[in-house]
């Protein structure tokens, strides 16, 4: 069970060996996707192997940062006290130009301007010295 004290804090990502490069990249302003050297598949969720072919020859390449909104939902009831001050905010399911989808949230405008297939652009927003979250604004 989560404690009431912990529920007051926003969850902050704790990088691990699989994801360290992603979070380092975001801190430096770029979104690193994993490209499989064997089958060419591109993945956002970081891991040691390619989910499609199992290959372990994986290279990081910076994404263009461009994508479009595949789906979204504007949150009016916060998932716990930590997010209440942000209401309302739009959670996005972004489809990157490179293919993979990712969860993010909308910045740079009111949440009700988000629409399906809207073009969006990456914004790396620092939340601590080490961590920047990949958010998106209208392109």
């Amino acid at each position, binding site marked *: *069970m*989560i404690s*009431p004290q912990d*529920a007051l804090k*926003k*969850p*902050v*990502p*704790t*990088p691990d060996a699989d*994801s360290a490069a992603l*979070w380092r990249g975001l801190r430096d302003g770029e979104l690193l996707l994993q490209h499989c050297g064997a089958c060419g598949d591109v993945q*956002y*969720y970081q891991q040691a192997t390619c989910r499609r072919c199992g290959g372990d020859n994986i290279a990081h390449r910076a994404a263009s940062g461009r994508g479009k909104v*595949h*789906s*979204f*939902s*504007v*949150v*009016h*009831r*916060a*998932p*716990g*006290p*930590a*997010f209440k001050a*942000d209401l309302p*905010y739009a*959670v996005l*399911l972004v489809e990157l130009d490179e293919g*993979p*989808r*990712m*969860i*993010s*949230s909308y910045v740079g405008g009111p949440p009700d301007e988000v629409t*399906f297939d809207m073009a969006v652009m990456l914004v790396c927003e620092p*939340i601590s010295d080490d961590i920047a*979250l990949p*958010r998106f604004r209208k392109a």
Partner: protein
Amino acid sequence: MSRDTLRGKVAVIGIGQSPTGKVPGRSPLWLAADAAAKALADCGLPKSAVDGVLSSPAMASSFHRFSVAFSEYFGIQPTFSNTLQVSGATAATMFNIGAAAIHGGLAEVVMVVAGDSMLSGLTPDLALRALTESRDQQYEMPFGIPVANTFAMTAHRHMKEFGTTAEQFAEVAVVQRRHASRTPGAQQTAPITVDDVLNSAMVTTPYHKLDCSLISDGGAAFILTSAEHAKALGIEKPIYILGGGECYTHEHIFLMPSLTTTGAVQSSRRAYAMAGFGPDDIDVAGVYDCFTGTVIMMLEDLGFCPKGEGGRFVADGGMSYGGKIPSNTHGGLLSFAHSGIPGSLFHFYEVIAQLRGQCGVRQVEGAELGLVHSLGAGFATNATTILGTESTL
């Protein structure tokens, strides 16, 4: 599929439900044990007859091994037990795995049991956060993604792709509230209209408060045994497990292959194949209903109507009495009760009671074949169970 499946080999012989809704001061273990005692009384077995226990974790309990803690609390020492966790789909997996364990000789009498006190044992904030805790700590949770949000994004996309409307979502809540108004113990029974749903507070678009399931307390328990043992015990109306199927398509919502077609297609297809029946044969259904749009998508994926037509199907009365597939006749998670994983066990309780012909004013006439579909975690987990009376064997 193996020829020697569990089809018809295992029967549900006892069912029990604790008080549901708001049950102040009662722990998840108490709720589970109360339901367990009722399930045993229902079939006349002593607790010493139970040699298998399957359960699921409770959000308002710190016991990691809930099935083990339950057994101690209930005073039994089973020789087969596990605490299963695939979120909302767990209910149907407990039936599928319980039946497989009996068929495979691991146990003779399996109790499926769960209880949770999300309403009285957690504050609303903690209940929502506990549900949200299951999202990925690095890739999802930092963006403030409530549990409702993953389901909302699928429903939203369904609107975009198929023209499904907020009014059609609302109709699910209206129908199920009508059903709940005839169910003793239902948490919400006051009639509602489509406008009531649309005018209730927005939670996460496109879902309003009345599109969302309740938060409740409650437990349920079931006694499963082999068909032969049920006969030997002289059980009046055993309800047989005819088929089970599951499918796990992703963990993260951003890796869901399609937002509008789910693993329920595969899980139900496998269950239908094992049972030897199809969607047109089913008389009554329990369809997981964490949100209204979930039901519409499931009615499609379970084969009760074509893909994309779920909204119209519901608006035309397809899930109501007299419609193609009367569903959630107790009111479901939306109006009867939703106490976490036990919530979907209430669908089992209702469908089994329907097949026994015990539902009084709610009885679906001539119900012989039932389906329960459980799912969870933004459609990451899907599990289906098909049940029937002796006439369906």
